[in-house]
């Protein structure tokens, strides 16, 4: 009797497995980030997991190099090709260097999209911008200008000289400078996304320009380091540090008054949208072409422009009124 019972259960099990083929093989979406261990990308991974839970049959592979180099990402991409994942969603360390590796992935039938920091059009099917570059460029100068009704001197503290997104934002910012009369950008310096170098550069700015009113740092390492430099120089209230940062990392700077406000999109939403888009392209046969509207779950839909790029949402401003609410989220 027990033999028959065993047989019955195994038949039932086999039936269950065959009945839901999707269950047997999850769609594997690789979320590749600039480097592991950066709060922003950890939050994006959280959003990707949220999308995976919503879609049901998706397995997220969150990966990236340990330092922000294109070489490291190429190795990661090659490993993912060998694993035959279904889709790769990447935030690139270099616009062009990754193209050959990603093209190889697409030749193998892997869906490739870039998000946050883009890849050249030939190396991906679409690019998801967290926000539109022009909106961010406008936002970073607006954040500084809002606290300078009578105008003043501002300086930029960027990441590296070759950072794709920082350079675009600064360029877009320069275009709208005419809308902010009286605001003068006196210098652009590079902290290389290292806390000590950014701190030193911020200190140097305050020395070179004693009348400096604001430091705009469109990078999460730079803005924190600059805020600390302002506190240590005793210039809280004189120099306002603003730009793009994470609420959890900037809570101290808002508390000390070194920063009045800063902005960021929601990285959770970004990881969520990237996963949704990768899934649509890979599983639902959606074609990424100029003008196409691709749904991305609770974030609405993404409209692609001529370069197959689309913007997710406007950056969101954080200040003393809402920092406590967000600092525990990301």
């Amino acid at each position, binding site marked *: 009797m027990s033999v028959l019972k065993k047989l019955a259960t195994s038949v039932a099990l086999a039936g269950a497995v065959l009945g839901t083929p999707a269950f047997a093989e999850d769609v594997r979406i690789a979320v590749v980030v600039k480097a592991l261990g950066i*709060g922003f990308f950890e939050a994006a991974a959280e959003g990707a997991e949220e999308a995976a839970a919503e879609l049901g049959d998706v397995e997220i592979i969150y990966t990236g190099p*340990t330092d922000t180099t294109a070489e490291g990402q190429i190795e990661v991409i090659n490993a993912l090709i060998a694993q035959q994942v279904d889709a790769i969603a990447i935030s690139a360390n270099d616009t062009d260097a990754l193209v050959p590796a990603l093209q190889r992935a697409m030749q193998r039938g892997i869906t490739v999209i870039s998000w946050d920091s883009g890849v050249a059009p030939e190396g991906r099917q679409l690019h998801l911008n967290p926000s539109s570059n022009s909106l961010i460029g406008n936002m970073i100068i607006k954040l500084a200008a809002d606290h300078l009704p009578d105008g003043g001197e501002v300086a930029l503290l960027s990441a590296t000289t070759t950072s794709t997104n920082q350079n675009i934002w600064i360029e877009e910012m320069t275009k709208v400078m005419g809308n902010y009369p009286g605001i003068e950008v006196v210098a652009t310096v590079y902290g290389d996304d290292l806390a000590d170098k950014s701190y*030193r550069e911020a200190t*140097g700015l305050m020395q070179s320009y004693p009348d400096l009113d604001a430091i705009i740092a469109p990078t999460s390492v730079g803005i924190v380091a600059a805020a600390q430099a302002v506190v240590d120089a005793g210039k809280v209230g004189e120099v306002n540090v603003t730009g793009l940062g994470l609420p959890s990392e900037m*809570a101290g700077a808002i508390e000390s008054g070194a920063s009045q406000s800063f902005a960021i999109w929601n990285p959770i939403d970004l990881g969520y949208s990237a996963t949704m888009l990768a899934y649509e392209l890979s599983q639902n046969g959606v074609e990424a072409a100029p003008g196409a509207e691709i749904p991305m779950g609770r974030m609405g839909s993404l409209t692609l422009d001529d370069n197959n790029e689309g913007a997710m949402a406007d950056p969101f401003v954080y200040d003393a009124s809402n920092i406590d609410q967000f600092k525990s989220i990301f």
Partner: protein
Amino acid sequence: MTRFIPVREAILAAAILVLMILIASRFAGFVAPSNLANVFNDTAPLIILALGQMVVILTRCIDLSVAANLALTGMAVAMINVAMPGLPIPVILVIAIAMGAVMGAINGILVWKLEIPPIVVTLGTMTIFRGIIFLISDGKWVNSHEMSPAFTGFPRAEFLGLPVLSWIAVACVIGFAIMMSRTPLGRSIFAVGGNPHAAVYTGINVGKTQFVAFVISGALAGLTGYLWVSRFAVAYVDIAGGFELEVVAACVIGGISIAGGVGSVGGAVLGAIFLGVVKNALPVVNISPFWQLAISGSAILIAVAFNARAGRTKGRIILKSAETPTGGTS
């Protein structure tokens, strides 16, 4: 008599002076006493690490894991501080130094007992330490608002006009000057690097001396780990990324022979100060960031070229007859 006049140190000090005069001609505020104190304070971590590295290099080894050791200790003490905000700073200091020493001891044991080349050992442990930071922190940052005021305040506290951070560097310099010139350990470090075979015959255990050197270097890296994290008020995986090369560069510029046995405390300190002045001056004199790399690189090459020339001492001729070519007429 010439060997009692530290020619190399004098030349380096003169080079630093010339450099400062050049900087002052473009930005007079740089040589103000208060700014020089800031520059020294900013260079303090590099000085402390360079002293540890000097000891290791003198014994014909190299420690590439110092920056990773610093980052791991820094992250660990930051997390301890978050978990137990009431823990007094002296306890934190002891933990930091002990942790660093243990990591140094791991390097030392591998070099001493398994006789693996130091560059391979420390290259390996460097990566392992960075990996451990990622594991213990889960990739998250420890931010300024999470640290206790005492934790971040200690290196900033002023004592006789200088911050504690600077005083710790001064104490290390004095301690090392005494250790290297007045203790059996200091002399055996020179002996091991100068001529390991001769050192064995004088009863010095070469491997054990190298082990001690690694422990010293590790302990200083641990101490700097706390100071670094509290000074910049942030701890994350990548802090002090690539700093190990700067530490080695400081030693090389300071005339410490990479082949071991030749070097001085004064040289290491001046080498670190030279790099510190360059790093702090470039942001205020408006020079392209690429020049910083070029200047540091040139300084290293010039220093090495100079050392190579100085090291080519004429051998003493014991047998006069050997000097004239013999058998030429046969």
